[in-house]
């Protein structure tokens, strides 16, 4: 009797969806061991976490507030990752989008809502998109590895925002604190009632749907997939790799930029340092866990939002703040680890048969 791992040629849909879900449950169980070891009741911990995030109208609203930037950045990242273009720069593109969008209400505070919001969206997309395009251009022009360039450009983007809010864009009535003036009402996306959850949710749904169709049905969606999995074949097929790199980096950055625009427009209501607690980085995990599938990204982003929102709830019970991070890490570990089960089939063979095959 031997155990063999055989690459499965046609991974089936059931195992592809079921195994990650089982892996996530396994990671919850795994973390439960630590809760027990530290003298906590895991049922109580998880119920506090899920109830904190989903147990009330307010909690659900807050979970969506957290999900929106994660999902938008995750979608942006997926566009690039699908082409094996490793855009680690979502964080910087988020900041540059937020920054470009902020320029509109600061310079033209009297624009009406119907003009203000669309221009802010365009500026946000341009800010993030051009920041991504720059890294793409480095890649096509001088073969600069986009992992390094996008990562480094994150720091530049964040410091650029710092530079503005500590300097030229500082609110003149803000006692020299690093904040821009609060946006006029016309520059703020509407929210649902008195809750904080806002119309940014429609951006998520719309963009995810469009990407889903593009990935699945369009020629361009197919081309980028081919470039990612086999650039040589793509070149033979006459696909222009350079222009696709540029276009993809622009779109990827633009989506992250829109995430930044949405966040400053409605959640923060002004530009200030620290508008993102690492959305652009967490979104990489989100996109990866969702296997770059636009609809799955929404689901994973929602799950991460639950862990994040619920994680702070746990702190009020006296749990350390690292609990939420531990859960996220364990999920990534288990889901990525379980990929071996979807990509390969485990075969139990008798030793005789095994020899024959070899």
């Amino acid at each position, binding site marked *: 009797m031997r155990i063999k791992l055989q690459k499965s040629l046609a991974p089936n849909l059931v195992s592809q969806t079921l195994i990650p879900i089982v892996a996530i449950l396994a990671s919850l169980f795994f973390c439960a061991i630590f809760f027990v070891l530290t003298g906590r009741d895991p049922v109580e911990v998880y119920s506090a976490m899920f109830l904190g995030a989903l147990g009330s109208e307010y909690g659900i609203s807050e979970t969506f507030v957290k999900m929106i930037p994660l999902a938008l950045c995750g979608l942006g990242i997926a566009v690039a990752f699908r082409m094996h273009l490793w855009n680690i720069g979502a964080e910087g593109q988020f900041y540059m989008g937020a920054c470009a969008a902020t320029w509109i209400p600061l310079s033209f505070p009297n624009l009406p809502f119907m003009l203000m919001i669309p221009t802010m969206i365009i500026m946000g997309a341009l800010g993030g998109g051009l920041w991504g395009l720059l890294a793409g251009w480095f890649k096509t022009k001088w073969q600069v590895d986009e992992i390094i360039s996008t990562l480094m450009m994150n720091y530049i983007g964040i410091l650029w925002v710092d530079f503005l809010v500590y300097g030229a864009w500082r609110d003149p009535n803000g006692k020299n604190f690093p904040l821009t003036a609060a946006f006029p009402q016309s520059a703020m996306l509407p929210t649902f009632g008195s809750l904080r959850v806002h119309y940014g949710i429609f951006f998520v749904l719309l963009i995810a749907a469009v990407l889903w169709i593009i990935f699945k049905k369009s020629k361009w969606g197919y081309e980028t997939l081919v470039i990612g999995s086999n650039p040589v074949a793509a070149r033979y097929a006459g696909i222009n790799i350079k222009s696709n790199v540029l276009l993809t980096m622009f779109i990827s950055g633009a989506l992250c930029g829109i995430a930044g625009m949405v966040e400053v427009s409605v959640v923060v209501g002004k530009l200030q340092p620290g508008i993102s607690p690492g959305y652009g980085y967490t979104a990489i995990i989100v996109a990866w866990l969702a296997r770059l599938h636009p609809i799955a990204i929404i689901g994973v982003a929602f799950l991460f939002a639950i862990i994040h929102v619920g994680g702070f*709830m746990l702190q009020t019970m006296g749990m350390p703040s690292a609990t939420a991070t531990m859960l996220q890490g364990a999920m990534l570990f288990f889901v990525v680890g379980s990929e071996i089960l979807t990509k390969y089939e485990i075969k139990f063979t008798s030793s005789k048969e095994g020899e024959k095959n070899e």
Partner: protein
Amino acid sequence: MCMFSKWERVLLSCLLVGSLAVAGCGSGKKDTDKGGKTKVAFVHNGSINDGGWTNAHSNGRLALLKDNKNVEASYVENVGDGADAERVITQLASQGNKVIFATSFGYMDSMVNVAKKYPDTIFMHCSGYKTASNMGNYFGRIYQARYLTGMVAGKQTQSNIIGYVAAFPIPEVVRGIDAFTLGVKAVNPKAIVKVIWSNTWYDPAKEKQAALTLIDAGADVITQHQDTVGPQLAAEERGKWSIGYNMDMSKAAPKAVLTSAIWNWGPYYEKVIKEVQAGTWKSGAYWGSMKDNVVDIAPYGPMVPEATRTLVNQAKQDIISGKLNPFAGPIKDQDGKVRVEQGQIMSDADLLKIDWFVEGVDGYISK
């Protein structure tokens, strides 16, 4: 295939329903009566073990718990300034906390928003400037302690270059650098204070690196306005002196630390809670001084000579009695222009928004 995806859906919804049901069962025992204790919560941007800013507030909470048995205090740490702050503060308010202390400047507007929704909760914001009928702000005149530690540094330095690792050019930090430099100048007119901006509140490695750069530039005393002990470790490693901030940092760097400018939040937190319990609390802006014991300097290290100790102790008494004010004129700025005339004292309003360096600072504030 179609069949299976239906099954998946069934399974998925079973799991969701199941987990919610489990969640529902577990929640029954919450909200027990706390026996009339005042529920107090703290929100921090750093970790309570950072050895600096948040740690000092955490010690204040522990002192409060020790001295007032009718208090139940919880905390939430590592809360970012953006979207998270408003939610965490709201959650704490909805959980029935009577008083919520928030210890980062960036929480100010979030707290103002939550304070509107919870008129029966008392909100206390540290280091900002906005107040509401149920929201007060509080801070301390740490610049008084900075001035005294500046005197210690000025006496101790041999290279006449003192290094200052600073987080961001906000008024609080600029004020500290100015007061420190005025203290240095009072005892050693030849010394200068070199400033490096780290652009972070919390990054032990980066803060340490900035301190090493200052030492390489000739500094033999290192001080800082950060949230960790990184700069002190650099001084210890290179055999230089150091002035701590936030807490007594002599444990982290026993051979380097001359003294530290420290926060002492315990007495203040006790005072606020007593007022709340007695029903006498009123909203307002509190800027505590050395006289109130909110700010102080830590015990001197063994390397500080007796003469320096006597001198600085005298100055401390003068600050407490009001005889000495670090921001009394004449004070010149970096360009040599007189900003505060002889016989005048800078007003609190000007101090709270200060954005210029005094003469003797070798550094730059971007504008």
